[in-house]
């Protein structure tokens, strides 16, 4: 055995990326002092979509769990706010943590049921389970029933500037934190297992990875993240209804962002979310046409760019801003790279 074996994970792009990241964090953190209300609202939305996309990508792009039912957990997070903050009078920010924990807790028995299904059946199954959650909330009249409920009262005591700033910082923490979290996870030993799982489930088992356990764990963590973001979404909207909380539109938008940006990479969801917001801003004046443009774009990318926009860029230029690849470097030998 030689001691000159080094696992290399940094690249020149990643070092540039680190400098850029610090600049982005500073700019984002100071936004409440210089940005207008409209920009802030868009910013909050962009940041929570970023978090949702990162987490969905971790689950679907690596864990192979193509779920179309994550809106169930957005609903659980949102309705935790109604139950604990509005009805029971707990601090709304504390309630975010409760909603997140509840989403993770419910995800565990749900995974037992859903993991019996595979592929397309799993995708449809998750959607159906989410619909069940929608019906639960719609029929629970104490939480507003089918027509929904306004929860403005929960934040009445907080000054508007602070409320906006707090929501923004929380969204920034969760959005940027999701990138950091997924990156650190992929660089850990669990990252190795997740990448193996992405490539071959049967081979993963054969080399000692407990696949079902790993998938359950990813599903539960993703649910907790969706619950947290769900709470945050409705803490800024201050009005919730079963149809807006447990809506398939969440899944459709997230899938668009991840698939167009590049599934199975950290950079993909970032590009996807920026593209989605740019398109939405510029196409908003043209009414329903923008949905058609989104559809055409998604189809074009899927047909022509394998691995989405970032997947194509990565293949052509070998760029890795978030390198998670372990490269072997040895002083005796020059090793070819990809």
């Amino acid at each position: 055995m030689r001691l000159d074996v080094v696992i290399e994970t940094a690249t020149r792009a990643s070092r540039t990326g680190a400098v850029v990241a610090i600049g982005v964090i500073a700019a984002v953190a100071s936004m409440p002092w210089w940005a207008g209300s409209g920009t802030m609202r868009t910013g909050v939305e962009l940041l929570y979509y970023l978090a949702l996309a990162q987490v969905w990508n971790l689950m679907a792009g690596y864990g192979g769990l193509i779920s179309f039912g994550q809106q169930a957990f957005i609903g659980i997070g949102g309705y935790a706010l109604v139950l604990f903050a509005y009805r029971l009078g707990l601090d709304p920010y504390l309630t975010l943590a409760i909603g997140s924990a509840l989403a993770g807790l419910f995800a565990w028995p749900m995974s037992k049921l859903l993991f019996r299904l595979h592929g397309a059946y799993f995708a449809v199954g998750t959607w159906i389970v989410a619909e069940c959650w929608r019906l639960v909330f719609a029929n629970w009249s104490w939480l507003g029933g089918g027509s929904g409920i306004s929860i403005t009262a929960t934040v009445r005591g907080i000054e508007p500037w602070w409320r906006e700033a707090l929501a923004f910082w929380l969204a920034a923490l969760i959005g940027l934190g999701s990138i950091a979290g997924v990156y650190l996870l992929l660089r850990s030993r669990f990252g190795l297992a997740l990448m193996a799982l992405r490539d071959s489930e049967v081979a993963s088992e054969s080399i000692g990875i407990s696949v079902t356990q790993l998938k359950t764990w990813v599903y539960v963590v993703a649910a907790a993240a969706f619950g947290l973001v769900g709470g945050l979404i409705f803490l800024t909207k201050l009005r919730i209804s079963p149809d807006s909380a447990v809506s398939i539109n969440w899944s459709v938008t997230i899938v668009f962002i991840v698939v167009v940006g590049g599934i199975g990479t950290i950079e993909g969801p970032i590009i996807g979310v920026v593209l989605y917001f740019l398109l939405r801003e510029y196409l908003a004046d043209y009414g329903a046409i923008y949905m058609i443009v989104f559809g055409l774009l998604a189809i074009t990318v899927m047909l022509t760019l394998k691995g989405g926009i970032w997947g194509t860029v990565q293949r052509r230029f070998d760029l890795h801003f978030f390198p998670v690849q372990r490269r072997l470097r040895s002083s005796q030998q020059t090793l070819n790279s990809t």
Partner: protein
Amino acid sequence: MDALLRLDNVSKSFGALKAVDGLSVSLQTGEALGILGPNGAGKSTLFNLIAGHMRPDAGRIFYDGNDITTQPAAERCRLGIGRSFQIPHPFAGMTVFENLLVGAVFGGGLTERAGAAECHAILKRTDLAAKANRLAGSLTLLDRKRLELARAMSTRPRLLLLDEIAGGLTDDETLLLTDTINGLRREGVSIIWIEHVVRALLRVVDRLVVINLGALLQEGEPQAVMASREVREVYMGMDASA
């Protein structure tokens, strides 16, 4: 000697097809066993049963004195059963080195740092060192087969199940492969090898088992088994026409 692995009257059916039919086989510690049989004889199913990718319909499987019949595949790997797949299953989006590293970490129970050195050594033994940082998905079929062996080795197996890894190799490459496998034997690894390339098999194994239609046809010392008329008829006859 203690039996490292013992299959006791194991059966597995797929619908009406009895892929493995009441098979009993055992392997001593340190032994190398070759398995022959025509296509569809149930050889790969047998490996799936031993490695835990399938549960038998009937019968028990014992490893190292313990009943592992219901243990999941990942657990069996951690107990020391490593396997290669007949159709390579590389982790295509990971580098060749990472393919081994993940085995060393999860199957072998090593840290990434300790595993890296060991994986480097295995890459050299299997002639893959120069391709360590290439994506496994970019390898040729031959290198993918090498990777199957290398990755199985990275899990630090005590029992190695090899499924047709010599097909398509040149004479020199076959020699290199059998040298590597014999090297593993000297380190105490027990082997079960399914192989159609009989001359490669005979350089390694102590004992041959021939199965046909999921059942044991012949078992014994390699030369004697190969000389038997029954084996020649069933195996050579059917294999030539297949």
